[in-house]
């Protein structure tokens, strides 16, 4: 029985010719003497013969002709999909660890960006109005002018601007008129600052004149007179050019510019005082006294 079992297990190898000569002879001897094993050998051999009738699966030439193209397309498609997955997943952890820029720089950059955005929003949406900005500038440069700015803020923008213009011009003219080369230092005039202020006022005069033409002809003429004098101051070459300073002084006096400025201030003060006395206009505040005439 054991001999049969061992012999039967050799039958497939014998059928496919994989047995060595010695084992094959041994099996042949057993098969010739054992009917059961011989019968099994015959049946298995018959089975293999029947299985030979099955051809290899073959989908046909059309399938094989396009096989490489289909495979190549699929490989390209899957390589593309893999690349996208890698991109979507970001760099691998190893690369993150070895990046050149330290992690804290991203935080710092974010803070700077946030700060810059805050400044931009503040400047764009919460900037002070032009009038207030100018008021601040005048109050910085001249305490006297700053005094009138408080008053001007309560009146109409044009009147306020005109008032500030007169205040600044007056301060400038007083500096020139009171300049005495014999009594004071030749360089006490601080010509660069005066020239710069004059240039600013000349530029502002052009706009003011245009706006005042329709509402206040008297004030417009005063601004025109001032403009000429301011142009002369702006064109002064040196404090030591005494003749030019004298010409400016005579111009101020001949046209009574300072007197006219004082008159304008008084008129404005009275207007504002009257308005403050009227109880019907709650927005108006009592006017403060303007600069001394």
């Amino acid at each position, binding site marked *: 029985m054991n001999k049969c079992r061992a012999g039967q297990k050799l039958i497939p190898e014998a059928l496919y010719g994989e047995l060595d000569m010695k084992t094959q002879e041994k099996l042949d001897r057993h098969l010739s003497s054992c009917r059961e094993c011989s019968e099994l050998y015959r049946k298995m051999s018959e089975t293999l013969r*029947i299985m030979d009738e099955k051809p*290899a*699966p073959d989908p046909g030439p059309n399938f094989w002709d396009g*096989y490489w193209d289909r*495979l190549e397309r699929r490989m390209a498609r899957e390589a593309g999909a893999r690349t996208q997955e890698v991109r979507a997943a970001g760099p691998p952890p190893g690369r993150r660890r070895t990046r050149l820029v330290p992690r804290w720089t991203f935080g710092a950059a974010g803070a700077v960006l946030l700060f810059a955005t805050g400044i931009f929003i503040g400047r764009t949406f919460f900037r002070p109005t032009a009038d207030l900005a100018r008021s601040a500038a005048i109050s910085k440069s001249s305490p006297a002018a700053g005094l009138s700015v408080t008053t001007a803020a309560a009146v109409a923008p044009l009147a306020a601007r005109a008032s500030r213009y007169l205040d600044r011009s007056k301060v400038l003219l007083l500096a020139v008129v009171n300049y005495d080369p014999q009594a004071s230092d030749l360089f006490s005039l601080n010509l660069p600052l005066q020239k710069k202020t004059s240039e600013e006022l000349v530029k502002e005069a052009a706009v003011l004149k245009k706006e005042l033409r329709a509402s206040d002809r008297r004030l417009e003429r005063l601004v025109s007179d001032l403009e000429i004098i301011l142009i002369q101051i702006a064109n002064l070459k040196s404090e030591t050019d005494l003749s030019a300073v004298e010409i400016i002084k005579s111009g101020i006096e001949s046209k009574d510019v300072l007197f006219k400025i004082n008159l304008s201030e008084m008129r404005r003060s009275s207007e504002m005082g009257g308005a403050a006395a009227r109880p019907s206009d709650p927005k108006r505040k009592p006017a403060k006294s303007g600069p001394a005439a």
Partner: protein
Amino acid sequence: MSRENKAGLADRMIAGDTSAFRDLVEAYKKMVYGLAYEMTRNHADAEDVSQIAFMKVFKSIGTLKPGCGLNAWLYRIVYNTALDHLRKKPFFPKAAAPAPAALFSDPPDPSLGPEKAAEFAFLRRRIDDALAKISERERAAFVLRHYHDLNLKEIAETLGITLGSAKSYLFRSIRKLQKELAGMGLCLDKGDLL
């Protein structure tokens, strides 16, 4: 392509020859498809498995040790890919399983006559049915031995089993096929399985 030339394909691929992969596909595509078809019993699945197997070959050709048989290595990739594919496929109860796809048999020889041609078609159908009824490992052992001419050592290497197990699977596969065919009236008698 001779066996030496086929073995040289792997060396060419490892050396970086870009045309070697196409040559390898052309040389092995029928063999790869054949095993994939026998394992999956379906044309679409067989093509899918064969393409995946070739892509695996392309990616991992560098892992092939010099001197190792390309055939066994390639068959092992196809076999494992087919098993993975079968495991991922949805389960159908046998009664509800879809009918097998049409066979790709050679057209019958017109000289045989219609009766003989019909007989051959019937026989091939029965053989296919018998193969479908044995286990995947037994079927792989039989197909590799009978249709792909691999010896038992190569079969063992391909299936990742011992030589003794390969012999056992081959023996059992032939006996089961014998029983199936006998049940269909194609063998002399059924014969008891050992």
